[in-house]
């Protein structure tokens, strides 16, 4: 559906990109393979200008120029001559060197780099339909947007050398204020769009000044214009403001993010033309260069967007997502459940009705395509991802689940769930993560003291299996062998799992309750057996703290993400990751499996949410709009929607199929650490650091938008300001931040957190 709607626009887009191609024929992407010096633009509608001598050269050329300048300055005449003579050869070696550096600089990419590159390459192809038309795929004639493919190559030297060109530092303020004046003078409808330019321009101009050692000018520049920037860039500005020396640029991650990725802006064609004309008239090459080199302007036809529309989508570290990034088809439907004969013993008739429903952890909101037991058209192939076969115990559990589900309370604005709060006492500010099992029988906590603790919240105590010697003694044929293998002496309410050597930042139960995953600052993910309460595997791959991990709803697979910006997909029986999802520009802070286990969502400190396809490792969705690091994610039970919560206290709702933001829930005053949809998806619960649980009417939130005609083609939605209408309740805790939420199978809401006296 989405594809159909998008078709005409894409055609336009293609045209646009082609013209862009002509404009910037040389391109300037780091991944250019050959050593040929690009020719200057042929049919340049935009004059490249004198300052940009030799045309908008590729980075290696710029490096070369810089070296030449340096040699000239230091009067190494001979060397200059030699260099000039051997320019071609040198360039080749430079290039390869650069590539090597690039490879080594990418910390996370070691063994499984192939996945990475695969994803990169495929994202290239999917995101740029124009490329297919171009004669040589991936070559320099590839358009500006192709350079997105090179964004994963954070080679500092190459990247920084882009700043070697410079104008007169004294004029920077003039350039900027000139642009500012211009933007203020344009028509209102264009002003908001053009204002988007300020922030990236500001940052790049500042960095250029710093790079070229104009410290005082840089400071003055920052002083003068930093106040104009949008408030949601505060955090980045704070980092930037500390940076006043070229030497400091090397290790700075935020800077690296800026330099390695193009800042994406969406601007309507009219506004863009205005800007271009202005810059041409003024001969304002400095700004034009920056726009060419460091910005990606996604031009669309149609109405310029309003300020609020822009604001709702911006805020991420690297601007908005490109439209192409969200065009891929996503199979968000649910998998068909295997048929299980439910023994209808003493259950009432409701049980029979429920039988037809899919037997799932998270059943669909309405039985879309399930009543007729037909395949959901939006669902992936049943075997798209190989899933583990159901064991007998799993089937039993499913039956239990269905029985429970018949007793489920239907929630709605009129019938709100009861909330039980699990308070961790005496946690001494050390509780970092919590998870419940699906049947709410166990609760696990990760602690800053490197321990993982598991409690039984039912009267049934936790028992471990007997030792091997004792197991030999028991009668294996007896009926209650499962009971006999348990060591009664070990029964206790809670167990402590030791093994990590750093704070445990994430815990996740396997759906069958036999395993527990935990990830820690020590860079490992550990798999624990809940039969023996010992560590089974330590998955090493992340070299940096792992912030979150999550089991697949079908077990077997799990995802982890951390400080190295790479999310990894693992299978419990492989010690190496199956997939690596690279693309985030900052730490991955939270991870979540799609209910159909074909996709994973990752939230990041770069303020974007990405959806990855497990099958091929592609990034299929990039959601921008958050203004702070994202700390919680939740898929709706029907798999259609995604909710994300961030440090700014806002919860955003996304339509996965269309790749659109469809709602904004404002109310929390602090980081939203937990989100959960009720079992039937009618209620979204959010728990936050501000000691409240809030309940939102998710049905209404989704309906409101669905009745609206999306304007899906442009993706420019008008978000209704209806947070207050959607808010069904605010529930205070007693100075206990809510860090986890869970709906029981009967829709009782469980919340957990540590009491902070």
């Amino acid at each position: 559906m989405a594809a159909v709607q998008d078709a005409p626009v894409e055609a336009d887009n293609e045209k646009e990109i082609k013209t862009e191609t002509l404009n910037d024929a040389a391109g300037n992407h780091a991944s250019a393979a050959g050593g040929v010096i690009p020719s200057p633009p042929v049919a340049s509608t935009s004059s490249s200008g004198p300052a940009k001598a030799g045309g908008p050269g590729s980075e290696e050329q710029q490096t070369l120029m810089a070296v030449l300048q340096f040699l000239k300055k230091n009067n190494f005449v001979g060397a200059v001559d030699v260099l000039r003579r051997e320019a071609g050869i040198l360039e080749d070696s430079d290039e390869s060197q650069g590539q090597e550096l690039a490879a080594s600089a990418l910390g996370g990419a070691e063994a499984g780099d192939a996945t990475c590159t695969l994803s990169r390459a495929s994202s290239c192809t999917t995101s740029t339909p124009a490329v297919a038309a171009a004669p040589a795929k991936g070559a320099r004639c590839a358009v500006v947007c192709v350079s997105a493919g090179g964004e994963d190559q954070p080679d500092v030297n190459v990247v920084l050398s882009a700043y070697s060109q410079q104008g007169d530092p004294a004029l920077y303020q003039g350039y900027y204020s000139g642009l500012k004046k211009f933007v203020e003078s344009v028509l209102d409808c264009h002003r908001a769009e053009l204002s988007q330019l300020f922030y990236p321009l500001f940052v790049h101009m500042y960095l250029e000044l710093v790079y070229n050692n104009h410290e005082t000018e840089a400071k003055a520049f920052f002083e003068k214009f930093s106040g104009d920037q949008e408030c949601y860039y505060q955090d980045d500005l704070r980092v930037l403001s500390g940076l006043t020396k070229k030497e400091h640029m090397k290790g700075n991650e935020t800077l690296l993010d800026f330099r390695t990725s193009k800042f994406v802006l969406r601007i309507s064609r009219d506004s863009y033309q205005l800007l271009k004309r202005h810059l041409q008239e003024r001969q304002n090459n400095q700004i034009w260069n920056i726009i060419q080199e460091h910005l990606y302007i996604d031009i669309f036809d149609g109405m310029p967007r309003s300020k609020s529309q822009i604001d709702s989508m911006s805020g991420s570290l690297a601007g908005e997502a490109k439209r192409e990034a969200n065009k891929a088809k996503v199979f968000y439907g649910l998998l068909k459940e295997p048929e299980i004969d439910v023994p209808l013993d003493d259950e009432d008739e409701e049980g029979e009705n429920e039988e037809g429903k899919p037997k799932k952890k998270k059943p669909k909101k309405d039985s879309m395509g399930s009543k007729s037991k037909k395949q959901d058209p939006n669902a992936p192939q049943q075997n798209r991802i190989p899933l583990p076969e159901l064991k007998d115990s799993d089937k039993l559990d499913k039956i239990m689940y269905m029985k429970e589900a018949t007793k489920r309370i239907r929630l709605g604005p009129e019938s709100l769930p009861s909330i039980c709060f699990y308070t961790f006492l005496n946690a001494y500010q050390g509780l970092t993560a919590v998870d419940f099992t699906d049947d709410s029988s166990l609760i696990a906590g990760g602690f800053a003291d490197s321990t993982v603790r598991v409690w039984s919240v039912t009267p049934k105590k936790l028992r471990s299996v007997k030792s091997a010697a004792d197991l030999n003694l028991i009668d294996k044929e007896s009926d209650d062998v499962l009971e006999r293998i348990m060591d009664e002496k070990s029964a206790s309410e809670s167990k402590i799992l030791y093994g990590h050597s750093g704070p445990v930042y994430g815990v996740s139960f396997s759906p069958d309750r036999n395993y527990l995953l935990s990830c820690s600052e020590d860079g490992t993910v550990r798999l624990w057996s809940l039969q023996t309460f010992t560590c089974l595997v330590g998955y090493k791959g992340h070299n940096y703290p792992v912030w979150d991990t999550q089991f697949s709803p079908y077990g077997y697979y799990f995802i982890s993400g951390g400080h190295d910006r790479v999310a990894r997909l693992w299978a419990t029986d492989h010690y190496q990751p199956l997939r690596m999802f690279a693309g985030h520009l900052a730490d991955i802070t939270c991870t979540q499996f799609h209910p159909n286990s074909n996709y994973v969502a990752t939230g990041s400190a770069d303020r974007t949410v990405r959806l990855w396809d497990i099958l091929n490792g592609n990034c299929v969705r990039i959601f921008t709009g958050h203004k702070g690091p994202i700390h919680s994610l939740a898929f709706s039970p029907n798999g259609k929607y995604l909710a994300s919560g961030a440090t700014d206290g806002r919860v955003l709702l996304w339509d996965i199929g269309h790749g659109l933001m469809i709602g904004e829930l404002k109310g929390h005053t602090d980081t939203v650490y937990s989100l959960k949809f009720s079992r039937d998806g009618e209620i979204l619960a959010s728990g936050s650091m501000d000691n409240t649980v809030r309940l939102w009417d998710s049905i209404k939130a989704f309906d409101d938008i669905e009745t609206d005609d999306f304007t899906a083609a442009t993706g420019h939605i008008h978000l209704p300001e209806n947070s207050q209408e959607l808010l069904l309740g605010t529930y205070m805790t007693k100075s206990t931040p809510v860090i986890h939420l869970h709906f029981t199978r009967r829709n009782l809401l469980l919340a957990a957190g540590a009491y902070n006296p």
Partner: protein
Amino acid sequence: MADREERRFAEVPRESIRLMAESAGVELSDDVAALLTEDVCYRLREATQNSSQFMRHAKRRKLTVEDFNRALRWSNVEAVCGYGAQDTLPFRPIKEGDLFFVEDREVNLVELALATNIPKGCAETMVRVQVSYLDGKGNLEPQGTVPSAVQTLSDDLLKYYQQITRSILGEDPHLMKVALLDLQSNSKIAALLPYFVYVISGVKSVSHDLEQLNRLLHMVKSLVQNPYLYLGSYVRSLVSSVMYCILEPLAASINPLNDHWTLRDYAALLLSHIFWTHGDLVSGLYHQILLSLQKVLSDPVRPLCSHYGAVVGLHALGWKAVERVLYPHLPAYWANLQAVLDDYSVSNAQVKADGHKVYGAILVAVERLLKMKALSLSVNAEGGIGGLPRPGGIMGCRESSPGLSPPPEPLSEPGLGIASHLHAGGAGCPWEDWTPVPLPAMYCELYSFFGDSLAVRFSTGPSLGNSPPAPLAQPPTTRKELPGGTANLDTARKMPQLTANLNISPRQDGSPHGEQGGGVGSAGASQSLARSSSSSSVQRSRSSSSRPGQRPSGLSRDVFPKARFNPLPAGPPIFSFVIGGRQMGRRCQGRRFQTTFTPSQPLSAVSSRTYAHKLPVIGRVGKPVRRWTCSQYSLHLPL
């Protein structure tokens, strides 16, 4: 805009960098220092920035030292150790030169390892569940309102708070008991702790009402005993409230009918209880307490009841405290007390009665001091063969008397914070100069004050100093008596009987110990007096020389022996006091001390009214101390 303000970073000055470099043996030129400074500032900012993510992921609001260290570690910088403590670190300036530094005290590892007061382990982390909101309702807070400071308490907590305070401070004693019991065992009142502490700090406003003070103290006790409460820094507040009850000249004390002495005793017990159970929560607490007690003791303008409080407070804190504070003060204090006790004028009667209370308290305190010291010496002598070569030193005693001696900090460290402030204000022996006095000398000196009132007897001959067996033999006998001897017996023997009408019998017959010991003791004392007086303070020698002719024996203080025999023939008995000292050997806590007080109402009431407006104060004794002339009475007990 706001971000302009945020740009103000903490800057490390160039001088600091240069100083650091110098301390590392590098001389920096100006521009190098400037460059380095900027880099240091930047790196610090960077590390801080990086550390914040650890805070965020630990779901905390407070950035900890640990977070910062993690950031350092991940950027391959050595972590900074030694700052993980929960307490804030005092950042101190050096007067000359603008040098600031973080106090970094040396920790005596040996002491730490041998310390017997192993800190309580942290309470076990646990999960408790509670249905907070039934069907989305039962939301006790009005939804959507901004919670103010008070509203953060949920309704039921608020109700609980009201009920508890009402029943504790109310009339019904039975209700009070129930409330106190609940306060002792309720696991869910952590949120109310600050409020209760606030209520308790109200002692200052009810100082006229003994009953209320008592109830508040009981409340303190319940809170302290509640195993689910983490008192944290509230300990300080509780201690100050309790100290108020111990030390302040409460308004209730104006009326001698009010038994504020018991209150002080109870408060002192409570203080020691808090201190032993929760003293580790606040660093330097021990010293602060000691210093304020010392300050009161050394302030002659304070009323005697304050002094009494200080003494019982010290006593309750253990014999070490007595040794440290009371004992060195005794010579100075003695003169004043003696003056009060020797004044037999009618107008002084009330003051004198108070003085006797103080005397009794001191006596009990020093007796235990002697006993415990002897005991520790003996244990030390037994165990000391193995290689603890500190004879009688306080360190040597440490491990020998669990539950009594070890304060959480080493005694020798200087007081900090408030304590140091107090210290500056208080006139007293500086801690630094303090050295433990060997037992014989101590005994001699004490004997010179108390004479045979001291129940503990040692042979104070010159041989004692180098013969530990003597004290070794002695303590068991005194110990043995403890469980057997009734309160009455103890009272009779140990405490000075200031009885006008002999409403309790002195029971001299019940103290064979005193009989035997008396002879030895007096003989020993006579020998040792010369020695000890030479070393005793100037003031004491002055006071003792002030009445040279009173005591034929010239050995011990005569007031109390005299008082004991005087009453029958003496003129109209105006006061009837019983100052009872009881030793209670309860559990292993050591002996507790309590006084009972039974005023004979009609008589004292008459006279006290005259003086009701002023409290007995040593400093206010206007007239010259009357000399005691009847020297024939100043004999030792003819036992």
